[in-house]
């Protein structure tokens, strides 16, 4: 078999999958977004820009997504990094495996159930009641953007921890000694050696969490109580409830474009951060 033939064979399964499951549906959505809603819902073929003109009606969902997705990514990073650092650098190998398993244990239960648990924690008889007992009154947590943020960070933390853990685990610990030997304080060693060498993990983790957050709908639906809508919720509503497929398609297409733009800006930023380094991959 020729080299090209072998390459084609390696790529064929994923290629066919992508074509059938991604490219074709995307094309359908693209076509639908120029159509009209049928009388009983669904889609009626047409060519109109009406759906796109109607987008501002869903501006809040876009705004929430574009604020909470990056914010959630950053919050997850801030919480995940020290944890990953501890696991990879400071933790004794004896405990490492057990602690790593603890990080993924939440995945054994559905995110739906875990998010419901948060309803109780953040709800009137949970944290706010606790705060009230120490004299802090009138704190509303559930059904706020804050509740959604908490849910997001909780749900996506492992996805951030693992790539960072891997890059810190790969880090040659002798480099830290070499840095100390050359007169660098522990803090400067962290900034000049550890942090730059964990950029690939940070980049991967952020990318993974951010992309998934842009399409999130479950957590805002449960913890936002219909008040903090994401674009994902708008799509659920448009396709499943009001059955306005044409408008839903326009919203979906817009989300795809927004995502492409933000992700490519992000990639630019990361590749600049990584300089001409060979060891920094973008994803």
């Amino acid at each position, binding site marked *: 078999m020729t080299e090209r033939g072998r390459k084609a064979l390696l790529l064929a399964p994923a290629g066919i999958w992508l074509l059938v499951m991604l490219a074709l549906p995307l094309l359908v959505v693209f076509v639908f977004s120029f159509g009209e809603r049928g009388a009983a819902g669904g889609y009626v073929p047409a060519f109109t820009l009406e759906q796109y003109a109607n987008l501002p009606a869903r501006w809040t969902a876009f705004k929430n997504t574009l604020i909470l997705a990056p914010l959630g990514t950053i919050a997850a990073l801030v919480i995940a990094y020290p944890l990953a650092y501890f696991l990879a650098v400071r933790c004794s190998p004896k405990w490492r495996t057990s602690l790593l398993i603890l990080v993924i244990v939440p995945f054994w239960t559905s995110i739906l159930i875990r998010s419901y648990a948060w309803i109780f924690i953040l709800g009137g008889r949970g944290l706010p009641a606790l705060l009230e007992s120490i004299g802090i009154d009138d704190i509303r947590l559930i059904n706020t953007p804050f509740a959604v943020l908490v849910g997001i960070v909780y749900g996506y933390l492992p996805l951030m921890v693992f790539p960072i853990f891997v890059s810190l685990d790969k880090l040659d610990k002798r480099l830290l000694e*070499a840095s*100390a030997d050359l*007169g660098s304080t522990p803090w400067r060693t962290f900034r000049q050696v550890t942090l730059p060498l964990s950029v690939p993990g940070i980049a991967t983790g952020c990318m993974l969490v951010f992309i998934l957050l842009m399409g999130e709908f479950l957590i805002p639906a449960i913890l936002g109580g219909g008040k903090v809508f994401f674009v994902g919720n708008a799509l659920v509503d448009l396709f499943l409830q009001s059955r306005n497929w044409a408008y839903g398609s326009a919203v979906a297409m817009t989300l795809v474009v927004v995502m492409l733009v933000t992700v490519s800006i992000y990639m630019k930023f990361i590749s600049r951060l990584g300089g001409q380094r060979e060891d920094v991959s973008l994803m």
Partner: protein
Amino acid sequence: MSVTMQTIAELRGVTKTFGNVVAAKDLNLSIGKGEFLSFLGPSGCGKTTALRMLAGFEKPTEGQVLLDGEVVNDLDAHHRPVNMVFQHYALFPHLSVFDNIAYGLRQQRPRVDKQTIATKVEQALETVRLGGFGPRRIWEMSGGQQQRVALARAIVNEPKLLLLDEPMAALDRKLRKEMQFELQNLQRQLGITFVLVTHDQEEALSMSDRICVMEGGSIVQVGSPRELYDMPRSRYVAGFVGTSNFFDATVTDSAADQITVRLASGQKVHGTPEIPIDAGQEVCVSIRPEQITLTRALPTAEIALPVTIQNRIFLGEHTEYLARNEALGDFHVLVPRQAELNEGTFNAGEQAFVSWGEGALLILEK
């Protein structure tokens, strides 16, 4: 080390334990300013541990580490005027060659200005013969080049003490020889005190002013290469510094300056041991292969033993023979080219005699 030499670093009764492993046991050693000292010993004998305590990566469990006359047990590595060349170099993969070498200078407070850094780095690069390699990436450098970058990264800081942990272990034989030569030149040129860790006796012998031989966490003997070679204190040292023939013997008579021992073959020989030995003690005698003479005719030496030639290996300048004596066992004999031309080559199975001159035989602790 001469008496007048200034001491730059010192270990005083230093012990280091990891759990119940004793990695270093009661080390006492002073290192003179400007000298080239090697720690020599087999794997696991505590060489790296000793070095790491000087660098500040490990704290002694007991005893004191002194630098420039001050106890530095509690001084962190980054505060010590000491630099280390790591066994696997530990170069920063995300930095260029230039930035790797500049790393130490950039940590200094008050800050060193850019121009000075650039000049010093260039100089260091020239010193290790890597001029112009500054902008290169680490992974673009060969093993030998990386080793030189590691060296430059350390010497650019002008440390009081340069520690080298088997810096040449990863290099091939030819390159290692070259680097040994360069390292020695560099040490003379810079006047920095070098402490080298190695398990390669040839390396230690050829490069050091003094060698510190270690065994199982302890220092067994410290001395110049010649002292260790000519006057080893124990069988262990004699075996580690050069090669030798060892035979068991019993002390029959112990006088103040000379003792008499009986070999397993029945002959009695005399010698002056480095350490006090009592009559009746089991000892070991050592004869270096190059100090043995191989002859066809019975020689007139104090002792001559009949042997049968077993094997011959041509080594260029020397020929090595394996000769067997009925009572004592095998002798390794190194015959120089000239002697071989006089006496002619011996063939396997031939009968001959081994003998040695006065002072060639050493009496050692077992």
